[in-house]
């Protein structure tokens, strides 16, 4: 989906106004600290994956997504997932044994992470140096090909192996596709003003077509 979250190249959003690194708090309010911890802790219940979680935040009116602060979007995402997965009702009825991590369990999960590298099931379609085009994708589901790259041509510079494919994973279907690092000239993305600049984007094989040379 090309939602409010898909921000690369958008104009009119103003200055960044970064806080100085030395004076910056990790959280700017107590509720941010709480929603951060709640989001991670509920994620550890294994009822949804990271792509479903991202998609839950993305599925909002673009105006809301942009107006809300970062952690407010996390709150919206978590409320949505709890609702859609009926987690509170399920906990109430105690129909299943949910494993709730304690402190040690949570630390273990944070330390081991969630690697996405999978076994290759098919040979890679593209080699290093191949010219490719990022396809136009109009679907409303979750995807990780940014709108600004769609239709642009670039070159494969690295092959990261087979990784969990977000578009399918966001629907609960954990399967892998080849993942590449693709270099796009600034010029091909933005026009002549961007000489001497390139953008590297990680793109899965289904996003790519062989480019006409």
């Amino acid at each position, binding site marked *: 989906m090309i939602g409010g979250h898909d921000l*690369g190249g958008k104009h009119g959003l103003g*200055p960044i106004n970064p806080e100085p690194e030395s004076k910056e708090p990790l959280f700017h*309010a107590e509720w941010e600290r709480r929603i951060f911890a709640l989001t991670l802790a509920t994620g550890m219940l294994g009822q949804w994956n990271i792509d479903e979680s991202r998609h839950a935040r993305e599925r909002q009116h673009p105006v809301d997504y942009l107006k809300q602060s*970062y952690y407010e979007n996390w709150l919206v995402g978590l409320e949505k997932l709890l609702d859609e997965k009926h987690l509170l009702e399920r906990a109430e009825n105690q129909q299943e044994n949910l494993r709730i991590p304690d402190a040690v369990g949570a630390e273990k999960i944070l330390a081991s992470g969630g690697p*996405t590298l999978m076994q290759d099931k098919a040979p890679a379609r593209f080699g290093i140096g191949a010219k490719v085009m990022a396809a136009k994708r109009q679907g409303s589901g979750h995807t990780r090909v*940014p709108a600004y790259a769609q239709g642009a041509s670039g070159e494969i510079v690295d092959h990261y192996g087979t990784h969990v494919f977000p578009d399918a994973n966001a629907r609960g279907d954990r399967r892998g596709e080849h993942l590449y690092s693709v270099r796009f000239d600034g010029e091909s993305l933005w026009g002549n003003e961007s000489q001497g600049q390139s953008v590297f984007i*990680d793109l899965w094989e289904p996003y790519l077509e062989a480019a006409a040379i």
Partner: protein
Amino acid sequence: MPHDHDHTEPPSDLELRVKALESLLLEKGLVNPDALNAIIETYEHKVGPKNGAHVVAKAWSDPDFKQALLTDATSAVVDLGYIGRQGEHLTVVENTPSVHNLVVCTLCSCYPWTLLGLPPIWYKSAPYRARAVSEPRSVLAEFGSELPESTGIQVWDSTSEMRYLVLPMQPAGTEDWGEARLQALVSRNSMIGVELAKPASTLAQRDAES
């Protein structure tokens, strides 16, 4: 826990909403309060940019490690104990006089947590996510960083679970410095690529003042 908010102000809607959600999740037994504390403790006190600074300073002072880091960063940093959530797969990109690297996540906020901790608010902001890919020089200028016209800029948009860390150029005059001293020159922002590493004089100044 620090109480930095003003108690005379009524709580915001967001505060109330999050409180209600937390109470509900605790009441249904879906989260363990000790786990919540452990998660916060991890990112407030254990995992942060000092990890990344350690990796960069080691790369500056140990050519074999630098080679390993640029070849397979995931394995190279695992050997230092840096592995975990949002750092499962890692690529390190090296700044040189002819190439400068900058990291962004235009679609959300992907960031190498294991080496830099949680991202700063500006990294997650709409203006940074919009502009880093299309006008990196004006973004760098906002951070006070200017590069020669001849330096090419490579922007890394973190669209997959691969995480990117910038290896900044080692400041001039620090060639014989030890790893511990070098770490003090590695800012978090230099490892995202919006700034350069601090010049050697920063420390010389500090030494003179102390």
